[in-house]
C-alpha cells in the first residue's frame, strides 16, 4: 500500500476533465461544491472517477464533502492499492 498525496492541481484536473466543472469557477481550495454547481450526485460521480482512474475505493463519507479543501483532506486520508498505482 502506498500513500498518495492529492494536490490541489490533481483535484482540479479531476473536476475539470471528468466532472465538467468550469476551470474559472475554481478559485482556490476554499471553493465550495455549491459554487462549482456540483449537486448531491457529484459525490457518486467522484467515486466512479476515483475508482476507475486511480483505483481508490471511497466510502459513504464522500457524499458529505462540501468543498475542495474537504475533498483534498479526505483523499489524503485514503490509501491506494499498490496494484493500481
Amino acid at each position, binding site marked *: 500500500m502506498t500513500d498518495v498525496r492529492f494536490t490541489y492541481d490533481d483535484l482540479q484536473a479531476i473536476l475539470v476533465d471528468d466532472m465538467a466543472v468550469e476551470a474559472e469557477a475554481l478559485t482556490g481550495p476554499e471553493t465550495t461544491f455549491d459554487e462549482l454547481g456540483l449537486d448531491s*450526485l457529484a459525490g457518486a460521480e467522484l467515486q466512479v472517477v476515483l475508482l476507475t482512474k486511480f483505483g481508490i475505493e471511497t466510502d459513504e463519507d464522500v457524499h458529505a464533502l462540501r468543498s475542495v479543501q474537504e475533498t483534498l483532506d479526505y483523499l489524503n486520508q485514503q490509501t491506494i492499492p499498490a496494484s493500481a498505482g
Partner: protein
Amino acid sequence: MARFGHSGAAVIMGLGASLPPGVVTNQMLADRLDTSDEWIHSRTGIRERRVVARGVATSDLAVEAGARALRSAGCDDVDVVVLATTTPDHPCPATAPAVAARLGLDMRAAFDLGAVCSGFVYALAVGAGLIAGEIAERVLVIGAEAFSTIIDPEDRTTAAIFGDGAGAVVLRAGSATENGALLHFDLGSEGGLADLITVAGGGSKQRSSGVPPSRRDSYFGMQGKPVFKNAVLRMAQSSRAVLDRTGWDTIEWLVGHQANARILNAVADQLDLPRERAVMNLDRVGNTSAASIPLALTDWAAAGRFSPGDRIVLTAFGGGVTWGSTAFAWPELTVGHDRHLWPDERHNEGSDKHNSSPTRSSRDLLNERFASATEGTP
C-alpha cells in the same frame, strides 16, 4: 447442448413499443411535492414520464407492445412469450400467459421473468437460449411495467424518476452473420447489494413474519447514490465484456437502461464513447425499468437514427442487483410508430382515442390516483 455460433443464433425480426397517454411533467410533480423542474432535470435528465390510468395494468401495455412487435416482424405466431416485469398484474399467476392469450398466442409457452431493470436483457438471453437449444423457432420478448403502481406518490425522488411503458422484440432462429443476430451476452448479479433496490413488503418474507407491511415497505425504495455508482461501474464493465467477445473496437450506439442521464453519460465516458452515442429518450418517458431498452430502441428506430449494420450494445443494471449486456448489428426493420413517444405530435392528433387533452386528463388522473394513495398498499 445449446449452440451459440454460426447457426442457432437468435435474430431480431420485429420491434414495437407502447406508452400510456397520461403525461406527468416535472411541473406537475413540483405542484404537489417539494421539488422543481430544474432540480429533477439537472439530476436525472427527465422532463416528463407516462403513467397508466386507473385500471390499466402491465398486461395492457405488454399486449399493445407485443402486437406492434409482431406486426413489425410481419408474423402472427411465436413459440414462446417471455415477459420481463417488476410489476406483474398479480403475484400469481404470471402475467405472460394472459398476454399471450390476448395476442392470439394461446397454448404457447409463456412465463414472466424478474430481474428488475435488467429484466429485458435477461429475457433476450433466455429467448436466445430457447432458440439456440432448438426449443423455439420464434420468441416474443416483452419488457413491460406499470411501475407507477409501486411508487410512493409522496416520495419526490422515485416519483420523479420512474414511468410506465412497454417494449417488445420478436426473435427468430437465424445465423450469427446476419444483421440483428444477438452475438454475445454478459449477465451477472450481486445479491449482497439486494437492499439497494427493493419493495420490501408483499413477498413471503414479510408475509411469514405475520406483520403487515408498513406503508414504506409497500412501495419501491432505492438508495440513489450507491445505485448510481454500481450502475455506472457494472454497465461499463458488462459492455466491455461483450465488446471484447465481439472483437468490435467501437460501436455506433450504446443503448443503456434509461436509469438517469448522468449515469448514461458516465457509462459512455467509461467506454471512451462520445456521449451523443448513448441513446437517451428518458427525458420524455423517465425510467421504465424492464421496458426502457426496447422503448429506447423503438424511439430511435422510428426516428430513423439507426442504419442497417450499425453496431449496438444494449446494457442494463437493476435491482438484485443484476446487470446484463448484449450486442448486435442493426437489422432492416419497420417499427410500429408510436405517436405517443413524440411530444410534438401529441398535440396534433385528430381522432385518436388517446387524444383527450393529455395534460388536463393526466392531471385528473394524477389527482384521482394520488388522492387515494393513503388508502392502502399500491
